């Protein structure tokens, strides 16, 4: 896999402003999972949406040393991948959302049989939708994962599977993740740096 030096900056954010957010400055390093917390309404989701360039925003956002304006928006969103709390689906069957030549290892790692590709999206539970959306997102091989409560609808066993998958992906690919979580036990398991949003501003929490 890509062997990047551990201290390399993947995402650098300087003076990011969007509606109700900012200015926000921070950086994410290769192989790092950063926790993001804050009360609801503090601007966590808005920050993630701005980073994925889904809402109008200004400021410098640099991915692997390249300024965002020089990356096409479609490439940007593949590389700075946002997983919303309630991911949506647009085709009738699950498999149509995945690469047709993709392998089933991630599906299996999250407890699905390969037949899940033929399932109707309508019949998925919210937890299944969340897990499958993570697999869908990782197929784009993103550099940055913006995860908005990715285990909110999962039982503890499945939550751990998701954590393991993200951790493996991040360290294998020298990627990084910003993980919104309200569960104190999960936050303890994730470890790493902890960022806090308060009224649209960000600060780093010192242990």
């Amino acid at each position, binding site marked *: 896999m890509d062997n990047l030096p551990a201290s390399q900056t993947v995402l650098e954010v300087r003076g990011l402003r969007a509606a109700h957010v900012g200015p926000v400055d921070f950086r994410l390093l290769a192989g790092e999972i950063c926790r993001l917390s804050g009360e609801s309404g503090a601007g966590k989701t808005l920050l993630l949406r701005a980073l*994925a*360039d*889904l*809402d*109008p925003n200004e400021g410098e956002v640099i991915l692997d040393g390249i300024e965002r304006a020089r990356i096409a*928006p*479609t*490439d940007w*969103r*593949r590389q700075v*991948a*946002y997983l*919303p709390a309630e*991911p*949506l*689906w*647009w085709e009738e069957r699950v498999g149509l*959302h995945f690469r047709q030549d993709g392998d089933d290892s991630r599906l299996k790692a999250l407890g699905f049989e390969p037949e899940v590709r033929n399932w109707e999206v309508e019949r998925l539970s919210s937890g299944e939708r969340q897990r499958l959306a993570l697999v*869908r*997102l990782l197929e*784009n091989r993103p550099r940055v994962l913006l995860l908005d409560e990715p285990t909110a609808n999962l039982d503890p066993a499945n939550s751990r599977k998701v954590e393991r998958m993200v951790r493996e992906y991040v360290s294998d690919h020298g990627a990084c993740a910003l993980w919104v979580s309200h569960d104190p036990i999960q936050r303890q398991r994730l470890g790493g740096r902890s960022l806090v949003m308060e009224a649209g501003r960000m600060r780093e929490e010192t242990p």
Partner: protein
Amino acid sequence: MNVIALSPWDLSLAAALVVALAALTARIGMGLSRSLLISGARTVIQLLLIGLVLKTLFENAQLYWVAGLALIMLSVAGYEVMSRQGRRFSGWWGYGIGTSAMFVSAFAVTVLALTTMIGPSPWWEPQYAIPLLGMLLGNTMTGIALGLDRLTQTAWQQRRVIEARLMMGHGWGESIGQIRRDAARSGLMPIINAMAAAGIVSLPGMMTGQILAGTPPMEAVKYQILIMFLITAGTGFGTLGAVWLGSKRLFDDRQRLRLDRLKPGRGK
């Protein structure tokens, strides 16, 4: 050609039917009587006015008078398209998208038909140019209004699905593709239905008018076929253009879905 002239008494009888309908809808509380009476009155006033205008225009056939009337018709049609939107684009776009698409398609088709198919001399002879443009604008207007309304309403309802595709790195065109196709389809359905039903279910208005005025039926039929095709082409190209422009306007240069560019319209 000899037409049986209609007396004011004949028209009053027909008007009484509409008034009776309005009275009935008021009685059963459908809330339609007011709009029925107002649009009925508008029909009388607007048609009398255009009758006067056409009479004057035919007597002083000048290109600039014809062009002036055509522009007025276009601007009114553009306003109608805008006012029929449940959610319309804010600023000039609300007026501009429909009007520019109508201008390009309806005017181009009219000029093409006048110069190459019908061929009056001069080519802008008002007796041909104005009714032809009127029929094209009227139908194109309906197609564009339906298409744009469907586009913006559906985009609004399905904004989270559109964004889900954007998040996966799909381009704006791919993300709204299905919605755009449905919008174009709903704009084109009326004219496709009209073509399919022509002659069997309905005798189209223009043909009926020509036959009443004494034109041999086969001549009237040929004109009607020509008009049907022109209307289909004008409506089709106009609707496709407007829906494409509208869908493009829903996204900005970074391909973000910008529903803040819509504002609630008066709807219909």
